[in-house]
């Protein structure tokens, strides 16, 4: 567990204030930062706008958080997509270890009620490790990372349509695996009968 911890926010208490590197980030680029929260494991996370994540990530790397520890997207099924980033300082002793988390939230619908496709900036130019992680999130959630040199599917075969981990994904009726001269048709199972 990292050294600096904050207790989880209780209803009725004042919202937690950023401190340490989170406050420095909020002061350095106030246009990008859109919020602050503390997760249930006690680690703070700064919410960043989708078009500000590149400079926030660069700020983190320049302040010693050199290892990309986590790049995880989620779809909460109701209102938004999100990407959680965790950057970590490489440490030789326990005192050197520190973690910084950033989160980007992409709403599913804009104010007018139209559907939005999730989009975000790519941080590949800052952390090369984000290359495959962003491809995976594109493949599974359809989040387009602008600035990625080669954003294409990584798990699914090239012709796959749809983004499987989305909550509203429906499995296609059949999948035709192309081979030279012969197609293999794999049908989705119907009503559980063998």
């Amino acid at each position, binding site marked *: 567990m990292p050294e600096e911890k904050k207790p989880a926010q209780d209803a009725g208490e004042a919202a937690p204030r950023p401190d340490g590197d989170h406050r420095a980030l909020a002061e350095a680029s106030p246009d990008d930062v859109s919020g602050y929260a503390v997760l249930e494991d006690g680690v703070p996370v700064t919410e960043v706008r989708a078009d500000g994540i590149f400079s926030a990530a660069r700020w983190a790397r320049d302040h010693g958080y050199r290892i990309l520890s986590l790049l995880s997207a989620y779809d909460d099924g109701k209102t938004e997509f999100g990407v959680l980033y965790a950057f970590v300082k490489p440490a030789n002793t326990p005192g050197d270890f520190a973690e910084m988390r950033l989160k980007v939230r992409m709403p599913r619908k804009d104010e007018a009620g139209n559907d939005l496709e999730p989009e975000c900036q790519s941080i590949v130019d800052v952390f090369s490790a984000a290359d495959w992680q962003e491809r995976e999130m594109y493949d599974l959630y359809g989040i387009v990372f602008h600035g990625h040199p080669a954003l294409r599917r990584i*798990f*699914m*075969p090239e012709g796959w349509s749809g983004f*499987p981990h989305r909550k509203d*994904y429906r*499995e296609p009726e059949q*999948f035709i*695996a*192309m*081979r030279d001269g012969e197609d*293999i048709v*794999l049908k989705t*199972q119907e*009503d559980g*009968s*063998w």
Partner: protein
Amino acid sequence: MSPGEAAHAEAEAPAYDPADPSHLEAPRIPIVVEEQREGLVLTVLSKLVNWGRSNSVWPFTFGLACCAIEMITSQAPAFDISRFGSEVFRASPRQCDLMIVPGTVTKKMAPRIKTLYDQMPDPKYVIAMGACATNGGPYQDSYFVVKGVDKIIPVDVYIPGCPPRPEALLDGVQKLQQKIRDQNAILELGF
């Protein structure tokens, strides 16, 4: 009632009477015996060929997932599959008789499995090792898993387990050897 239930309902099991000791006997499994049409010489030749084939089954190094580890362990000294004739695990499908499918078959991998199976020369056998190769296993609800390798290639022996112990794999190989011995080798050669 689904079609599966209807099929089962038709074949009624006899009523169970606890006082009747015959239910303690092992159930009799009918074994189909093919008529040996060729006579004595070719029958013995067939048995000789089958003896050779069953005692030198060469598997294919084809590891998909966790069951592959148990397959590799079965080559290790503790379990030693080579005492059953599978001394050599070849990497090229053209040099193998047996394809053990250990692990989950995904839709991306399925055409490659079919290609590899087609590249194997006859007579070839397939063992579906583990729950995933049998029917999808723990990943039955997945959108990317083929629910059993028998949807793509014909399977001779199924080994349940997740993963099956190396001893279970050896048992499966022995059952396959029994199946090979029961084959009619001469007919298969096309004479």
